[in-house]
Each structure stands twice: as C-alpha cells, then as structure tokens.
C-alpha cells in the first residue's frame, strides 16, 4: 500500500493542498504528522483548496485527519474549498466530521499529585464502611437463621450438606496433611533445641500445648479462608455480576436465606471438625518425629502427653474454631455481594475477602488469648 502524501502547489485559484496515497489506519501516524506540517506551513494564507482526487484509499482515520485539518484552517479564518474530484469521499468526510465536532474536546485529567495520600485518605472511612457491612451481614444472617428456626421447612438442609461436603469433607485431606507436617516440624525443632539442655521430653509439652491451643485452629482457619472463603466470594460475586441475585430478589426470595446462610452454616460446622482432626494429625506428626528423630517411644510420648495437657487446652482451641469460621464466612459473603460488574472487581473482592478474613482471624485469636489469660485458663 502506498504511503500518504500531502503536497502544496500554487495554482490559479490560490494555494492547493493535494492528498495522495493511502490515508488509512496503518498509515495514520504518518498522515497525522503530514497534516500537522501542512497546517503549520500554510496557516497564513487566506484561502485554500483541498484536493482529494488523487487519493488511493481513505478510511475513517484519514477522513478524521483531513476533517481536522479543514476545521483548523476554518478556525484561523482561512476559506477552504474542495475540488470536484474529492466528491467521492464526501459521505465519509461528512460522517466523521459530524461525529468529531459533536461534543467538546475531551479534558484529560492529569495524575493527581498526592495519589498515595488520597488512597490513604479514602481508606480511612472505608474501614468504617467495612465494619458496618460486617455488622449488617451478621445481622442479616442472624435474622435469616431465626426465620429458619421459626419456619424449619424453609431451611435449606440440602444446600448446607452440599456446602459442608465442599468446605469440610473435600478439604479434609489437604488440611490433615498440612497439620501433620506442621506438627512434625514443631516437634523436630523442639527436639533439636531442647536436646542441648537435656530437656527432650518437654517437646511433648511444646507440641501438645501449641497445637491444641493455637496452631491447629489458626492453621485451619487461614487455610479455610484461602480455600473456602475465596470460593464463596467468587461464586457470589459472579452471581451478582450475572444478575442472578437480583433475579432471586424479584422472585420474592431472600438471597441471604437461600445463598448465604447455608454457606456460612456449613463453614461454621466444618471448621471445628477440621480443627479437631487437624489437631490429632498434628499430634500424630509430632509423635512420629519424636519417635523416629528423637528416639522417644510412642508409649513415653502418650504418657507424657497425658501429663502435659489438660482438657482445658483442648477446649480453648476448639471454642475458638466456630468464631473463626463465622468471621471467614461473613467476610466472604459480604465481599461477594459487593462485587461490581467487572471481572477486575471480582478479583479485587476475592483478594480482599481472603486478606481481611486472615487478618481478622489473627486479631480474634489475639483477643481470645487476652480473654483466656484474664480468666486464668
């Protein structure tokens, strides 16, 4: 395809601009600078003739550029006329001209100077909004739960079982494996360091207290936030995007009751169960390492275990589990419902669902620690 050209000649009727070649999309940049040059060189003249007769091809790009050139001439008071040979492109020129002159020129806002400060500023009230939406979601879920208790037939047991299967049963293998490994690692580290003091046997106390009180429930909660909370957010978010949730509302059904309550109930049931089995797996891992690496026979481990832990350590761990699960579930659902139309927003909310859930799980764990210390458990 031929490159675009713009030549100036002085004919009987005055200055003449003749466009040649292909004024098309693939040559747009060249044509743009040609038009700029042509305008700069001839802006002083009183009248100009534009000749398009020798053009090979013209598309909207070229038409826009030629139209813009003509408009600029008119703005500085130059009379512009077209030769007859240009008539074949008239319809296209008119169409782009009409479109290009319809609105005011776009005002491109520059980058704000204190973008980082602005982000922080916006994040502060957002924190309050987050807190409110957490409370709202908790309230809506409680109301839905009470309604379900009042009308047991409206309770979606099938849905709860389905989600329990997904976030509980199907999560079991990976949760057990990770707990087992963490228990084993704690035991190995304990033996390695305690051996210097000849205090090998206290590794049982270390593993048992740490796992039962803190590690198992934290690990399972964080894993659940990443595995199940994120999938809740993504599911609800894409339902929101495709107006499925609006469809439910118009049918007079409550999305909280149908979609959210079963999910949250399922995770609240699943996390304590996972925590229980996770604790056992971690203790098993600790015991196995103590035996193989530390040379402590299983019988010694078990008898030491009985001395080291009281039932209260176990209870402290287990009592936290449903609260952790509730936080994860509520955050996941409220983030899911806040997804806007775009795919990007879905990703953002899924990320923030996991981040917020993990953050709050750890904060909650700290609060529990303070509480249990205060009541002396």
């Amino acid at each position: 395809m031929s490159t675009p050209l713009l030549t100036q000649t002085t004919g009987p009727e005055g200055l003449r601009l003749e466009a040649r070649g292909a004024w098309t999309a693939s040559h747009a940049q060249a044509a743009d600078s040609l038009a700029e040059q042509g305008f700069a060189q001839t802006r002083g003249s009183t009248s100009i003739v534009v000749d398009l007769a020798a053009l090979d091809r013209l598309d909207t790009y070229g038409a826009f550029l030629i139209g813009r050139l003509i408009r600029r001439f008119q703005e500085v008071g130059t009379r512009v006329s077209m030769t007859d040979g240009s008539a074949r492109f008239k319809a296209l020129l008119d169409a782009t001209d009409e479109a290009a002159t319809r609105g005011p020129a776009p005002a491109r806002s520059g980058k704000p100077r204190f973008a980082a400060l602005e982000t922080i500023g916006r994040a502060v009230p957002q924190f309050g909004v987050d807190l409110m939406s957490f409370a709202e979601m908790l309230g809506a879920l409680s109301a839905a739960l009470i309604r379900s208790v009042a009308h047991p037939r409206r309770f979606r047991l099938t849905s709860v079982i389905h989600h329990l299967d997904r976030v509980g049963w199907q999560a079991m293998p990976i949760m057990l494996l990770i707990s087992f490994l963490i228990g084993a690692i704690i035991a190995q580290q304990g033996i390695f360091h305690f051996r210097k003091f000849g205090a090998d046997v206290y590794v049982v106390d270390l593993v048992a207290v740490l796992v039962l009180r803190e590690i198992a429930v934290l690990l399972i909660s964080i894993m659940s936030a990443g595995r199940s909370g994120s999938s809740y957010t993504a599911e609800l978010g894409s339902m929101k995007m495709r107006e499925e949730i609006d469809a439910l509302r118009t049918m007079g059904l409550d999305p909280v009751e149908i979609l959210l309550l079963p999910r949250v109930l399922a995770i609240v049931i699943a996390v304590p169960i996972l925590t229980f089995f996770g604790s056992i797996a971690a203790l098993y891992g600790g015991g196995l390492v103590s035996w193989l690496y530390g040379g402590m026979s299983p019988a010694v481990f078990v008898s030491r275990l009985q001395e080291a832990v009281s039932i209260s350590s176990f209870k402290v761990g287990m009592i936290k589990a449903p609260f952790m699960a509730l936080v994860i579930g509520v955050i996941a659902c409220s983030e899911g419902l806040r997804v806007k139309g775009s795919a990007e927003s879905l990703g953002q909310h899924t990320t923030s669902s996991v981040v917020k859930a993990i953050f709050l799980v750890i904060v909650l764990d700290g609060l529990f620690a303070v509480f249990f210390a205060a009541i002396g458990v």
Partner: protein
Amino acid sequence: MLQSRPLAIGIHDLVVGFGRQIVLDHLSLDVYEGEIIGLVGASGGGKSVLLRTIVGLIAKRSGRIIVLNIDADASADVETSAIGRRWGVLFQQGALFSSLTALQNVQFPMREHLAISRELMDEIALTKLEMVGISRADADKFPSELSGGMTKRVALARALALDPEIVFLDEPTSGLDPIAAGDFDSLIKTLQRTLGLTVFMVTHDLDSLYTVCDRIAALANGKIVASGSMTEILASPHPWVQAYFRGARALTRGQPPAERR
C-alpha cells in the same frame, strides 16, 4: 451482475457438529465484497455457529472457508493472525472488556495493532464512539455502567476500530428499541457505503432485512436453502422460508407506514 464481483467470504461444503449432532451440513455460501448479507434461520439453527466458524472460534469437521482470499487451513499462522485486524466482530452480548472503559475498549485494538500517538488515538476513538452515537460523557464509563443498547454501540465501535474490510454482526439490533435499531441499521448502511465494508449480519429483525441487506441467506436444516435479494427470497418455495417471511409477524411489515401506525 453480483457474480462478477470479487468474493469476500467463500464457504464450500462446510460441516460443523458437536458430538453426534451435525449443526451445519455441507453448507456453501458466497459473500461478495461490499455487500450487506443478512443471515436468517431458526433460533438454535446454527447461525451463530456459522459466524463463529468463519471467524475461527469453532473448529470445522470438513469443508473450506476462504476469507479475504486467505484459507486458514492452507496459510501460515502469521497470515491467519494478521487477518484479525482485517475483520471486526460484534458479539451478541457485546463482549466488551469489563475492566476497560468504553473509550479504552475502542482503543484496545488500535493500541495492539497500530503505532499511533496517544492523542490521535483518543481523538479517533472518540470520533468512532460519536459515529455510533456514544457521547463523550459516556466514553469514560465502564461496561457495567452502560445500558444494553449502549453496550452494542460501543461494541460496534470496537469492531470498527481498525476500519476492517469485513464486519461480522451477531444480532446487532436485538434488544434495541425500534428507533435505536433503525438508527443502527442506517449507521451500518452509511458505514458500508462510505467505507466499502462487507457486512455479514446474523439477524432476526425483519426491518433490518428489508432496509439494509443487499442479499439474504436463509439457513435451515444446516444448509442455505435460499439466498438472494428480498424478492428472490420471497419467491422461494421452501416451507421454512415461507413460514418465516409470510408468517403473521412478517405480514404486518413491509407495508406503507400509514397502515402500520
């Protein structure tokens, strides 16, 4: 006289199926350069499948498709990917990129395929949006903030972003009010006249068929059962074509405006 024009799309003995179901059964269709062809057919009859097969989204079982003198089977990959900038596709739901604004959606193909400055790209994209009737105020909206009709227009602007030689339109006027649909039709007609576009349009809109289409092809039972101008189509004896154009809904159309309103 049509036959003397060069071919834009040539389809020969095309077979497309999913599993055991054969959707397109030895279908042949020629589309000439610079014409607007309207494809009609029953819902679920394979119109969209044909369109998607032509643009290479669905694999064919056998047959030959030649678009702009390029046969995807016989050409190098470079050629087949280069053809992406010589056609534009308007999907039924618009298929706008949800994380980009209307303006950025139109600029996307320009950015990928053309080496032009940001300012020029802004100006041209805004002009294209104005051409399809999207005001500058709406250019910075995201697809989720656009109405159905506006989404269609932005999608058309994006399909036309590179001034392609062929545009494929999948039900361009569905979901638009009659005035907007009429505007859309005349827009397509204007663009086709001014740019010499070839338009391949899947449509159910009888008004579009009457007013803008140069030629109509009717798809039934996986084959093109009739093709030609509206008069030729109306003369076709095929029962499905008769039912489509002579049905109750069709009969109220094509009459003088006085009787219709």
